[in-house]
């Protein structure tokens, strides 16, 4: 990653500065360019659904924002701060940025939380301990505070009676709800969901989506979700982004993008998905 220049996201006309900005972000794996010059602003509190064919780079977008992948070009901003970069020495106000140090990454990363397709719960800890670990280790909460916070969140996701269960004793849907509570326990401003219902049996999808709906209604979280649940995206998202071969091929309000897609690729993708049921 090179030193870069990127403008601090400014408040748009009458609005607020974006919570997340991908500024000309590029990601390559060897010769393969997975994301090409991605430009995307997401407002605070906005719910964005990312859809698109397999391999189009949807997961990569989330993983970069969670700092699980390094980027090869551009700058990612979170909450008005550069995340992948930090201001260069003596460059105050000049807009010159150098790649972020571990310390800077840790500081900004705390604003983002992620829920994974395969849950990734810690198998050697109870549901409650899963939710307490990072608040105690990273945020320095006392065990008592962390326990209260964890128990409260687990009740919120409907698992108030499963605090002492281990992941191996829970269904997929329950595990995914623990994973949501675990991420929320860090009080992130941005939550990322990567196909969080794809690994679940069909009858367990609903309980997880219900929790996400509730989160959207009760918290002013910024939420970015990669999903194949078109019905849910339509009903839940403020905006839908259709990815195709590492670029945003089309973006818009769900009613427009689903009702009257402009892009030929979008149309093909949607009809293929609808056909599959």
């Amino acid at each position, binding site marked *: 990653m090179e030193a870069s220049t990127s403008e601090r996201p400014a408040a748009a006309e009458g609005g607020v500065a974006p919570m997340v900005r991908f500024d000309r972000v590029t990601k390559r794996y060897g010769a393969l360019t997975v994301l090409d010059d991605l430009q995307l602003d997401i407002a605070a509190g906005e719910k964005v659904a990312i859809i698109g064919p397999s391999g189009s780079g949807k997961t990569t977008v989330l993983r970069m924002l969670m700092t699980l992948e390094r980027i090869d070009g551009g700058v990612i901003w979170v909450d008005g701060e550069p995340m992948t970069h930090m201001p260069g020495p003596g460059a105050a106000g000049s807009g010159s940025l150098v790649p972020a140090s571990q310390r800077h990454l840790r500081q900004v990363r705390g604003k983002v939380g992620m829920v994974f397709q395969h849950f*990734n719960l810690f198998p050697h800890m109870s549901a409650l301990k899963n939710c307490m670990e990072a608040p105690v280790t990273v945020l320095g909460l006392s065990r008592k505070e962390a326990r209260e916070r964890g128990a409260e969140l687990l009740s919120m996701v409907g698992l108030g009676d499963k605090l002492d269960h281990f992941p191996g004793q829970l269904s997929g849907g329950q595990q995914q709800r623990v994973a949501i509570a675990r991420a929320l326990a860090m009080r992130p401003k941005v939550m990322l969901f990567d196909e969080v219902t794809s690994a679940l049996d069909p009858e367990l999808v609903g309980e997880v989506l219900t929790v996400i709906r509730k989160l959207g209604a009760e918290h002013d979280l910024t939420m970015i979700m990669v999903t194949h649940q078109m019905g849910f995206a339509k009903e839940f998202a403020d905006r839908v982004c259709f990815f195709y071969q590492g670029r945003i091929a089309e973006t818009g309000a769900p009613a427009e993008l689903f009702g009257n897609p402009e892009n030929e690729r979008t149309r093909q993708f949607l009809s293929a998905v609808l056909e599959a049921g």
Partner: protein
Amino acid sequence: MGVRQTTILVILSFVAGLVVASFAGFREFIPGLLEGAWVTVRITVQGCLLAVVMAVIAGIAKMYGPWPLRWLAVCYIEVFRGTSALVQLFWLFFVLPHFGVFLEPMTVAVVGLGLNVGAYGAEVVRGAIQAVPRGQWEASTALNLTRMQALRRIILPQALVAMIPPWGNLFIELLKSTAIVSLITIGDLAFRAQQMNQTTLKTVQIFSIVLVMYLAISMVITLLMRLLERRAAAGLSRGRVS
């Protein structure tokens, strides 16, 4: 082999020992050989402890250390795996004094065997850590744990379970290789046996007892490792359905 079978074998080997000891021709050798066995057990236990400590340090340093540490770990692992334990002991015992370092024979035995087995153990530690699914690291990063916090709190507890069976093998290897310490003037089980054999020529009796004693010690190691494995696995996947 389950815990129960191992327990039965341990009991059987002790019973065999008692039976052997009840014959007059064998009895006279038992006290001396027991003394030797006690020396062997002490070297084994201390050597195993050192091996575990070295293996964890070297294994983690090789994977995550800054480059000088990583380099040091690689050197340690390759040198101690690539040369024989006997040569290592001779080095510590006969060569170091030329440089003004004099070590007690027992210290040489524990350090030599501990470092030797620790070098193999480092690869066990590394393999077990690498076998923990990548998603566990990613979840840890997403929760903003540092790499060392993730290693200590999330990864190592899971890797531990996978490490126990190979460590059982290494401990038994260490037990068996204690026989070479007789070459640096230590009166271990093998040394006592040879000594008695030279003076009495009762080869059959002496080496039968020695065989049973080594077997008994290694069965105890196996049993302890089984118990440990069972506890660790229970802690890791309580009530896992599959």
